[in-house]
């Protein structure tokens, strides 16, 4: 990764203007680095061309792991390791094992998925995020364009494209 990066930022006020702007900017061939918003904008991931998140698959797999662990644990403990007659029931009283299996499925699915989400989005207490504009978490949407990724195009030309797409401000931002 480069240490020094320079960005052009288009600031948008309205989510619908933003959605059109993303389509427009992409159609001119400018590569968008990322769009930052104060709240989830529906349809933004589609116009940016992001693939569907695979987090549901992670949740399913972790859930399966939870079910298998819970059932293995209960059958092992109750049937094989220390069988006891409780209320005249079978040692392997499967219906009785359903509640704990369900709870452990939910527990592992939830924690597994959230863990994957944290790792994949680099969310951690000591993370130092690149804050393009402090108003992103307030009321502005910001489209960031990495100049190095768009070397075939003039900076001024990119700025013009952003302006004409409805950006209320066009700024420069550099990170060391």
């Amino acid at each position, binding site marked *: 990764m480069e240490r020094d990066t320079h960005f052009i930022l288009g600031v948008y006020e309205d989510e619908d203007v933003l959605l059109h702007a993303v389509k427009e900017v992409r159609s001119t061939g400018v590569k968008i680095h990322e769009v930052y918003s*104060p709240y989830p*904008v*529906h349809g933004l991931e589609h116009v940016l061309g992001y693939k569907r998140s695979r987090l*549901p698959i992670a949740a399913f797999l972790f859930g399966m792991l939870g079910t298998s662990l819970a059932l293995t644990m209960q059958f092992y403990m109750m049937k094989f390791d220390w069988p006891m007659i409780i209320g005249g029931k079978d040692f392997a009283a499967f219906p009785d094992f359903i509640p704990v299996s369900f709870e*452990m499925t939910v527990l592992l699915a*939830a924690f597994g998925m959230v863990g994957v989400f944290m790792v994949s989005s680099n969310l951690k207490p000591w993370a130092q995020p690149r804050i393009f504009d402090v108003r*992103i*978490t307030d009321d502005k949407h910001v489209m960031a364009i990495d100049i190095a990724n768009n070397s075939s195009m003039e900076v001024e030309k990119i700025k013009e494209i952003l302006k004409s797409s409805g950006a209320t401000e066009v700024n420069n931002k550099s990170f060391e």
Partner: protein
Amino acid sequence: MQVTSSVRQPLVTGGKTYHDVTHDVSRQVEGKPSLAWFLAFLTAAGVLALGSIALIATLWEGIGMWGLNKTIGWAWDITNFVWWVGIGHAGTLISAVLLLFRQKWRTSINRAAEAMTIFAVICAAMFPVIHMGRPWLGAYWALPLPNTFGSLWVNFNSPLLWDVFAISTYFSVSLVFWYIGLIPDFATIRDRATGLRKTIYGALSFGWDGAAKTWMRYESVSLILAGLATPLVLSVHTIVSFDFATSVIPGWHTTIFPPYFVAGAIFSGFAMVLTLMIITRKVFKLEDYITMGHIELMNIVIIITGSIVGIAYITEFFIAWYSGVEAEQYAFINRATGPYWWAYWSMMTCNVISPQLFWFKKIRTSIVATFLLSLVVNIGMWFERFVIIVTSLHRDYLPSSWAMFYPTWADVGVYLFTFGLFFTLFFLFAKFFPVINMAEVKSVLKSSSEKAAK
């Protein structure tokens, strides 16, 4: 471009802009606490300190400090446990079930309701833990940990053990759900702050930057967590009701318990949400976010669940008679006309009759009436658990061992302790955390606020 409906009430009133939302919610966190907050917090902390005397006495002397006897082995403690767990059902119901049903009005209330859920579950979990007598050994009795007895494992056939798994899962999943929602809002406060506050909220915000890709994953995670939490919230009170329903005690041994307990839990949970929200919106001046529309919708949920609970009470009675089992019939006649008749009729009045007042629009859109009725419902739901638990036990199989339950000062004190804990935590939350989910309110603002729609 945006349609402002003339039929539907706006979700947020007062023509708020996105910045107004940020400002109105964040100023609570950033400003000096008000005198009202200080008084409320000190009262709660005082109750906590007072109650802790009873808690320490119980831990020191053992549960002989409580009013339990050989006939009534479960009374206030389990009543309080079920009551708090029930209250802890509204938060996840609001954030998960209403998310799946796409009820956008949930956005202004889900944060505080989830916080309430988490605190209520902490209070609930205290009772079974204390009732273990020696809670410092509790992990061996409650969890399948290898031990020096063999290993002699916990009993997976027992509903009490299912409860351990259900409640700890519910608590941890609710906590994660709540925290994921808090991350973007902590980032908002971080970006407005300087100095130490920026460092603290920066760490709490986990380096959130608002990228579209992160939001996409965030939405995906919220949806799946809602999908997981919905059966979870239903399973928790179902399993709590199994504590009773799988026994052979007349009055407990009924198949109606799971749906009846779940409805009762939602009923009492919404009542507690209303109690807290009516105070919060007033103290923090959030009337434009938690509107009369929200209060009315919650009151409608209360009518529905209250009616389900009412039907369950009557069904139980009918089935006891219809079963032809004398012990079962006696248990119910004794509930309504025995020495605990006053508890039974308090329950019937508070839970079945009084919520029906919400059929009148005047009453369900009145703040004062809603506040009073929410307290009545909470009292009624406490009596429901007391009636189910104590009246089913106090006249058991041998008339020579029939008994009454009298709470001691330690019973009352430990209950007070949980009240103190609940409100202390809630007031701390209300001061230091954003009480309204700013990001989610912003996402529904455009369709609901005239100024933002322009």
